[in-house]
C-alpha cells in the first residue's frame, strides 16, 4: 500500500491590512522579516520580527510570522505555543489553527492536527487550505489504520514528508475589528456559494487574496479602494452582457477542462498576461508552481458548479463552486475569478478562494 503523496499546505505570514495601513513602517519591517525567512536567513528573520514585536508585543501578524520562523528553526514547542496563543486571542483566524495542524502532523499527532484543522474550517468553512490539509491528515490517519488492520510494516515508507511552512496570513475573508454577522453556513452540498460575509473592515480591504506565499503588498493608496467582492450577492443582470456571459462560461469550462486534462500550457493560457499572482510572486515562479501542481501524478478532475457572472466595468467577476478531485484530495470551495478580455479572449486577471 502506498500512501498518497502527502504534502501539507501552509500559510505564509501576512500583514494585517489594517495594521499595514496604520503603520506602514512596521509593516515594512515585517515584510523584511518575511523576506529573510524566505532566503533561509532564519536567525536574522527572527531578530527582525523580534524587534518588530518589541514595540507591539500583541501584534498578530508579527506573532504569526514569529511562529513560522520558529517552526523553520525546529523550535517546534515554542512555535506551538505561539500558534495556540494566537488561536486563543483570535479564534476567528484560521491560519494559526492551520499551522498548528501542520506542526502536529509533522509530529504524527494526527488527531490533534485534525482537531486544529476542523477549528480552522469552523472559522472559515470555505477555507481551501484547511480542507486540503484535512484531506491529507485523513489520508495519513487512514494509512495508519490500514497498517494496523493489515499488519503492514510502514516503517520504511513513512519518510517524513517535507513540509514547507506558509509564511503569509492570508485574508480569507473579512478581517478586522468586526466579526462576521454570522458564520456562513454551508447547507449540505448546496451549489450556491456561501454569501460573502458582510462585515465592514475599518478601512476597505485590498481585494487581493493570495493563494500562496508572500505578503500582499500593502496598498499605498490611502484612498479607499473599491472592494471587488460586493457585499450583496445579486443575481447576474440579464442585460446586454449576455453574450459576455456565455463566452465567460465557455472559457471557464475550458479552463477547468484543461486543468482536468492536466494540460499545463493550455491551463496557463487562460491567465492574463498581467495576472495578479498570489502574493505578488513573479509570474514565472507562479507558473512553475502551478505547472508542478497541475501535472502531478494521478488523475485530476475539476468541475464547476453554479457559476454567476457579474460585470465590473470592462471586467467580470465570476463566482462559482469548484469541485476538485485528485488522487490525494477532494475538495469543494467557493472561488472568485476576476476576468478581463484580452485579444478577444476572456482571461483570468485574479483568482481567489472564497466568494
Amino acid at each position: 500500500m502506498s500512501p498518497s503523496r502527502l504534502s501539507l499546505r501552509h500559510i505564509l505570514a501576512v500583514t494585517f491590512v489594517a495594521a499595514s495601513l496604520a503603520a506602514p513602517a512596521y509593516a515594512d519591517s515585517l515584510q523584511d522579516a518575511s523576506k529573510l525567512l524566505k532566503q533561509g536567513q532564519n536567525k536574522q528573520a527572527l531578530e527582525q520580527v523580534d524587534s518588530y514585536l518589541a514595540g507591539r508585543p500583541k501584534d498578530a501578524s508579527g506573532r504569526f510570522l514569529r511562529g513560522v520562523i520558529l517552526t523553520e528553526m525546529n523550535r517546534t514547542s515554542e512555535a506551538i505555543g505561539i500558534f495556540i496563543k494566537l488561536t486563543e486571542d483570535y479564534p476567528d483566524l484560521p491560519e494559526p489553527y492551520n499551522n498548528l495542524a501542520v506542526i502536529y502532523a509533522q509530529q504524527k499527532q494526527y488527531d490533534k492536527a485534525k482537531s486544529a484543522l476542523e477549528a480552522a474550517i469552523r472559522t472559515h468553512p470555505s477555507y481551501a487550505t484547511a480542507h486540503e490539509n484535512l484531506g491529507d491528515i485523513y489520508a495519513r490517519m487512514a494509512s495508519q489504520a490500514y497498517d494496523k488492520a493489515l499488519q503492514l510494516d510502514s516503517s520504511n515508507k513513512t519518510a517524513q514528508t517535507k513540509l514547507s511552512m506558509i509564511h503569509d496570513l492570508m485574508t480569507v475573508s473579512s478581517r478586522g475589528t468586526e466579526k462576521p454577522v454570522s458564520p456562513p453556513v454551508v447547507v449540505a452540498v448546496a451549489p450556491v456559494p456561501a454569501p460573502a460575509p458582510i462585515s465592514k473592515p475599518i478601512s476597505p480591504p485590498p481585494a487581493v487574496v493570495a493563494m500562496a506565499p508572500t505578503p500582499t503588498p500593502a496598498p499605498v493608496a490611502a484612498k479607499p479602494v473599491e472592494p471587488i467582492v460586493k457585499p450583496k450577492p445579486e443575481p447576474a443582470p440579464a442585460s446586454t452582457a449576455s453574450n459576455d456571459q456565455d463566452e465567460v462560461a465557455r472559457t471557464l469550462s475550458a479552463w477547468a477542462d484543461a486543468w482536468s486534462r492536466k494540460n499545463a500550457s493550455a491551463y496557463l493560457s487562460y491567465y492574463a498576461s498581467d495576472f495578479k499572482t498570489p502574493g505578488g510572486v513573479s509570474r514565472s515562479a507562479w507558473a512553475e508552481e502551478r505547472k508542478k501542481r497541475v501535472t502531478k501524478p494521478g488523475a485530476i478532475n475539476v468541475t464547476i458548479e453554479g457559476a454567476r457572472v457579474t460585470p465590473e466595468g470592462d471586467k467580470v467577476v465570476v463566482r462559482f463552486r469548484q469541485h476538485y478531485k485528485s488522487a490525494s484530495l477532494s475538495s469543494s470551495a467557493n472561488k472568485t475569478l476576476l476576468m478581463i478580455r484580452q485579444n478577444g479572449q476572456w482571461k483570468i486577471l485574479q483568482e481567489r478562494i472564497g466568494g
Partner: protein
Amino acid sequence: MSILQQLRPVRQLRRHAATLAFLVCSGSAALAAPARVSDIGPEPQLAGTLAAISQGDFTKALQQVDALIAAFPNFRLAYLIRGDLLLAQTKPLTSFGEGGKNELAKVADLHDEAVARLRALQEKPQGTALQRYLLQMEKEQKFAIVIDTRKSRLYLYKNDAGTPRFVADYYVTQGKLGAAKTAEGDKRTPIGVYHVTSSLSRKTLGDFYGSGAYPINYPNEWDRRMGRKDHGIWLHGTPSNTYSRPPKASDGCVVLANLDLDAIAGDLQIGLTPVIISDSIEWLSHDDWQAERSALLAMIDSWREDWESRDIGKYASHYSGQFLADGINTQQWIEQKRKVNASKNWIKVDVRNISMFRNPGKEEYVVVTFEQDYKSNNLSNATKKRQYWAKEDGHWKIIYEGTL
C-alpha cells in the same frame, strides 16, 4: 453538526456505507437485536459503527470505531473500518478495505470476520428452542459448549437443573480449510461430541496460544472407528498482537479472543465439560427435545434391565454388529458376557448421572456417559462408563462401551 458533514464527505460516506452495507443483511435488524448482559463482545459497537456510516454520520461513526479500538486493542477489523472511514474523507471508496488493495487476502479475511460477527449479532439464540445436541447434562456438568463452525461462533450453555440455558456466545476461528477433519494435517476442525481433557496454562505455552489452551478428546471413539486421524485439537487463545484471528485460520483448533477465553475458562471442567462442534446447529422445540431424550433414556434403562435379567439374547439385542471396544468385537463381547453370566445368581445394575450428547450432522450417534453401580452374588463394583449409541435401521444400538 460539524461542517464536515455538510460538505463533500457526506456523499462519499454514503457511498462508503453502501460498500459496507452488504455486511449486514439488514442494518436495522442488527440494531434491533436486544442488548443483554452477555453482549460483552465487540459486535454491538461494530453494528453501531456501520449504522452510523449508513446514516452518513461520519463524526459518530469515527467516535464509535475509536471506542471499539479503545475497548478491544489490536482489533484489526476496527482499524480497517477506521481506515475506510478516514479514506472516504479524501476520495470516493469503491470497496471494503479500499486502502488494503495490496493485501487482498487479509482484507478478505477481515471482511469475513465482519460478516460472521454481524450475522451472529442478528442471529443470537432467542426464545426457548433447544439445541438438539445437548440431550442431557448431568448435575456435575455446570456448562456445555456448542460450536457452530458455519457461523464461526461458540455458544455457552448453563446447566439449569438438566435443561441447557443459553448464556453467551463468542466469535471463534476454525481450521484454514474449514470443518470436518478426517486426516492428519488437513487443516480442518473436527465435527463431533468431545470433552475438555486438560488445561494448559499460559506459562507453558507460547504467545501464539494466548491466555491458555484446553485440549479436547479428538479423535473420539467414533472418529477412530471412521479412521479419522490427527491429534492436538485444542480450544485456545490468541497471540498478543491481535484481538482476534480470521474465521478460518487455524490448523484445526478452535481459537477464541483472549478476553473470551478468559470469560469461559472458569466454566470449563476438565473431563466433564462437553464441547460439541457442529457445522450446522439443529434446534428442537422443548417438547421434541423432551421426547428425544425420553426415548433414549428408555433405551438405556431397557439395556440395564436386560443386563439384570441375565437373558443374553435380550442383552445382545442392544449391541450393534459393528460393536468394537479395545479390539473386542460384537461376538467376543457377547460371548464373554455369556460366560460371566453363567456364574451369576443375580445381577443388580444401577445407572446414575447420565449425560447424553448427540453428534451433529448426518452421522447419528449419541455419546452417553454415566456412573454404574454393579452388584452381583460374587462381584460388585462402581465405574464411570461411556457408551456410543448409533442409529441402525431406525434403532439405537451400542457400538462402543468402555470405562473412563
